[in-house]
């Protein structure tokens, strides 16, 4: 089915105007209308007291089941510390060529790493993370081109090294996937 739009669903508190900035960049980069919605999940069900983190696998499944549709690419936006069983943390994850993904703001702030807060940087990092997960839902795997948004980022400074844009190879792949 043809993709009609991209839906960002917020689960938690985001500063006023924050998600609009993110949506604007996504629209500019991926050329789909971006809808912002508010979601309601009792995330305490996904809390792992042993790790004091939220289970990203279960949250992704929940978002997919409750909010995703075939004509949309849906990204659930959180502000909690996400993990998957094998990894100590994740910034986000998505179903490859699927309908949905999740991303969290929690580990993107400088203050978490003992540095001065930088709101502009947080917005930039979050934009990149959301576009990255959307790229996975559109069938893109990690890219080796250093400034491509699809490059894998395993720590926060990694995100700063790439841009919010797709490289030409990833862009042409999305276009091919779109036509097929």
């Amino acid at each position: 089915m043809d993709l009609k739009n991209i839906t960002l669903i917020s689960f938690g508190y985001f500063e006023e105007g924050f998600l609009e900035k993110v949506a604007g960049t996504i629209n500019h980069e991926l050329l789909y209308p971006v809808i912002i919605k508010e979601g309601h999940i009792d995330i305490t069900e996904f809390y792992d007291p042993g790790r004091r983190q939220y289970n990203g696998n279960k949250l992704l499944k929940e978002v997919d089941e409750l909010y995703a549709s075939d004509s949309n690419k849906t990204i659930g936006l959180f502000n909690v510390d996400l993990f998957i069983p094998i990894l100590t943390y994740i910034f986000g994850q998505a179903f490859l060529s699927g309908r949905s993904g999740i991303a969290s703001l929690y580990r993107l702030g400088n203050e978490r790493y003992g540095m001065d807060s930088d709101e502009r940087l947080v917005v930039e990092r979050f934009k990149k993370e959301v576009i990255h997960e959307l790229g996975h839902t559109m069938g893109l795997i990690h890219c080796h081109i250093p400034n491509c948004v699809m490059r894998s980022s395993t720590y926060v400074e990694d995100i700063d090294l790439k841009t919010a844009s797709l490289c030409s190879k990833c862009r042409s792949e999305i276009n091919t996937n779109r036509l097929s």
Partner: protein
Amino acid sequence: MGKKISILIVDDEESVRDSLYNWFIEDGYRVEVAENANRALSMLESDSFDIILADIKMPGMDGLEMLRRIKILKSESIVIVMTAFATVDTAVQALKDGAFDYVTKPFDPDDLSHLIRNASKQISLSDENETLRTKVLTLENVEDLIGKSEPMKRVLRDIENVAQSSSSVVITGESGTGKELVARAIHSNSSRKFFPLVSVHCGALTESLLESELFGHEKGAFTGAMYNRKGRFEMADNGTIFLDEIATISMKMQIDLLRVLETKKFTRVGGNKEISSDFRVICATNRDLKSMVEKAAFREDLFYRLNVVNIFVPPLRERIEDIPLLVDYFIKKYCLSMNKPPLTIDSSALKRLEEFNFPGNVRELENMIERAIVVGNGKKIALKDLPLEKTIISSTIESLDDLEKSHIFQILNKYSWNISRAAKALKVDRVTLYNKISKYGLKPKE
């Protein structure tokens, strides 16, 4: 990424399998999962995986036992073991059993990326080595070793067998058979090929000069030693040293050489600093070293140290069927270097070459062909262009310069030292002929 790397995840926890599956799929790997060791082993029977990421603690067969079985089944597989309960003992045991790495769950995303990157690097290195090994089987840089005869095929097989080892080699054979070419081919097909092949013609140097050549010297070590100089052993570090005419070295030099071969350490002449060098030694001789040992003319211990592998290069008369190939090769080689159109050879001339004894072997044949191209009419090499009747020349003259000198002298005498006529006969201009006369110091009374 060139080849798509495949990963098999073995873990009894579904959430771990799913997490790793999703992570690696996003990275572009081919990923399969197995919920226990038995399932993984049966998958490995029908499919191959570059990396196996396995949990240690699983019901039934545990990860360590599975690791041991995988290493028997497919020793080249890279197995990374994971556990939530790390102990030093299990880590040591896993590594002893051949695990590539050992990680404790959960791990940082960055650590996981590093781990897989390292494993991938190892895989590409193994692939590269495999490619290199395959390449060596088709020998490189052996174009000069011409011949399809059985004795030459044996030489090529010997080169192939010995090239990849670091064993010392003694190449034996008559003068002019191509022993140095064999040494070059061994070096070019060995893992040392990116480092120098250093040749030393032992027979051409006096004992003291040879000592200085081989070991180098310090400034002021002897009269004329104005600078420090590296010796050939030092220059051959990581490469190969080729000692030609090894049978000619003195007894004292034999002792020095033995010591260097045993320790790979030496000092420069006049120096006191010990120098190490990792070289492979290849020697050549036209003498029978074994009989020299029996006559106490060559040290037995040095003989055995050098003669780990022996390659015999056959004389040309024992591989007559290679003569047409060699002739063709030398004609092309010299016509190209002299900027002449390719010549052919008269069948009667070729027949006579095949009947000739060639005491000087391939070198003598090469010189004959070069000379024939120089003196011939430029179309076809004829019997008259080959000095086959003048066997005295072939037995006393070896170098092309000697041949050229002798030929020019004959022509000059033939034309009573009339330079213009002699130059015309030689098909060179008068200036060239004067230069040759001057070069060889030729005089009418000679």
